[in-house]
């Protein structure tokens, strides 16, 4: 299969996903409401934390919201990506997957198309968080350029998470099983990461886990962009680690889709 049919396949799978997304008004509304709830509820609940000078120092910010917005951005990317593979399960059940599999496009382009749509949807959601955060007084010290860079990080992280999800959905046949596996994986990941809480304040064994947690590597550079500035060492090392994860996962997904059975 040549590159051209791969690109076409990817584009049209992407096109379908985006059509479906824009047709589902409730889904779009919820994707806006969810981060609002996070920010307003969690953010306000925790603002008193920074009244205490000690916690303010551990968090590294005067306002918990400033600490939290990058975390919520990455968590939104996480969930948008990690539940995205379910469309494979529905397509299989509705018989649509057979159509995609018997079309003259490489099978990997099915995964790529769905992933691209998830990346774009994620970036849309994250932009809303950036705007909302802005309204609530959270300013990125790196300005609009920093927010753009943060969006790219969120897209990349969503790509990683959707790759995992697509890989699982290639084998898992029911949505219930997929949800069970994903919940089992993500809850510990979130709470051992620096998304909502600084790792510096965690027990040392959790700090160790956190060091192998992909969320940590996504949140750190975004938070740097929001709080400290263009710390290139931090940003590039985060980007490097995420890119390596992304590429390894592409290899895994490629072989799963091209060589294995998807039905």
């Amino acid at each position, binding site marked *: 299969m040549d590159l051209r049919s791969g690109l076409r396949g990817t584009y049209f799978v992407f096109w379908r996903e985006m*059509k479906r997304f824009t047709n589902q008004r409730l889904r779009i509304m919820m994707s806006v409401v969810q981060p609002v709830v996070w920010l307003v509820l969690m953010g306000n609940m925790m603002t008193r934390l920074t009244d205490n000078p000690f916690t303010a120092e551990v968090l590294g910010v005067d306002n918990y919201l400033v600490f939290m917005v990058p975390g919520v951005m990455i968590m939104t990317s996480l969930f948008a990506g990690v539940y995205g593979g379910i469309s494979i399960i529905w397509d299989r059940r509705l018989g649509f997957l057979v159509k995609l599999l018997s079309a003259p496009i490489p099978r990997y382009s099915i995964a790529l198309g769905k992933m691209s749509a998830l990346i774009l949807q994620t970036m849309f959601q994250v932009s809303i968080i950036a705007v909302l955060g802005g309204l609530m007084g959270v300013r990125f010290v790196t300005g609009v350029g920093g927010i753009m860079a943060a969006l790219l990080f969120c897209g990349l992280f969503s790509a990683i998470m959707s790759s995992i999800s697509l890989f699982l959905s290639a084998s898992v046949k029911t949505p219930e099983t997929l949800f069970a596996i994903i919940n089992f994986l993500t809850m510990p990941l979130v709470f051992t990461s620096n998304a909502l809480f600084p790792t510096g304040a965690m027990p040392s064994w959790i700090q160790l886990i956190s060091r192998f947690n992909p969320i940590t590597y996504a949140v750190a550079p975004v938070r740097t962009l929001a709080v400290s500035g263009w710390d290139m060492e931090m940003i590039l090392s985060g980007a490097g680690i995420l890119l390596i994860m992304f590429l390894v996962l592409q290899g895994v997904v490629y072989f799963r889709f091209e060589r294995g059975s998807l039905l």
Partner: protein
Amino acid sequence: MEEQEIFGLLGPNGAGKTTLIMVLTTLLKPTGGSAYLNGYNVAKCTNQVRMNLGYVSQDLAIDDELTGLDNLWLQAGLYHMDRSIRKKRTDEVLELVGLRDRAADRVDTYSGGMRKRLDIACGLIHRPGILFLDEPTLGLDIQTRHEIWHYINRLREEVKMTILLTTHYMDEADTLCKRIAIIDRGEMKAIDTPARLKQELGGGVIIFQFTDAAEPGVPEKALEALRGQDFVREISKNDGDFYLLTNESEEALPKFFTVLEGFPLRLKKVTMKMPTLDDVFLFHTGEQLREGTISREAIARSRSSMQRLRGQR
């Protein structure tokens, strides 16, 4: 298979129909042997085979959340058509399946028959050399089945499409197919036109009675004359009815009347029974019930497509 014919593939559950179609549609690699489609080996030239083939699976492979037009647009894109051609072909197939007026509506507002027609249109849009219709009227009511048959016949007449059709409904195979093949346990049991397959079982039976008004001896002479005819195999009497076994099919009845015209007698009643394709099918595959080896996922899939064919969301 010959070009421009509708070819029926019949067989009980587990006969190998689905496996055959999966191999021909490149969804499954053959474990041995080779298959060619338009001269392309299905295991090697996967892309050429896919471009030459339209596959309408028994599940509704259309996206209910998109409009009919979007579904076709997507299909045309997946088969590498350029924008201008996409537009033209989309119009063409919409006309062909009679969905032009509803093209801009979402598929979940369609009836079952309309969904199936859209599904078939998707299989046609890239003008494949051959179209696979896998149980096209499964789960549809009689009216909708006739509607689908109408459009399938239209494909044969207007587009001269070569079609491979599988079905469990013998009347469907009889109405639509020029030739049919019966397979069982991976083996070809019979292949011919429906008419000839029925003839092989022996022709029909003409059941008749004379009125009592005839003069004595005349009915006997008439029966004697009938027995001398080529098309008559045997005549027997049972419960006042005569049973005439013939080795021909529809042609037998006119011949029967021509012979009787020469005798001064009247018929009280006459009917003709033909062997049906059901009889042919059972003759070749036996009466034994088959164990289905269907996966749970396939069951879930067919259940959802049944609901959608009944026009539910």
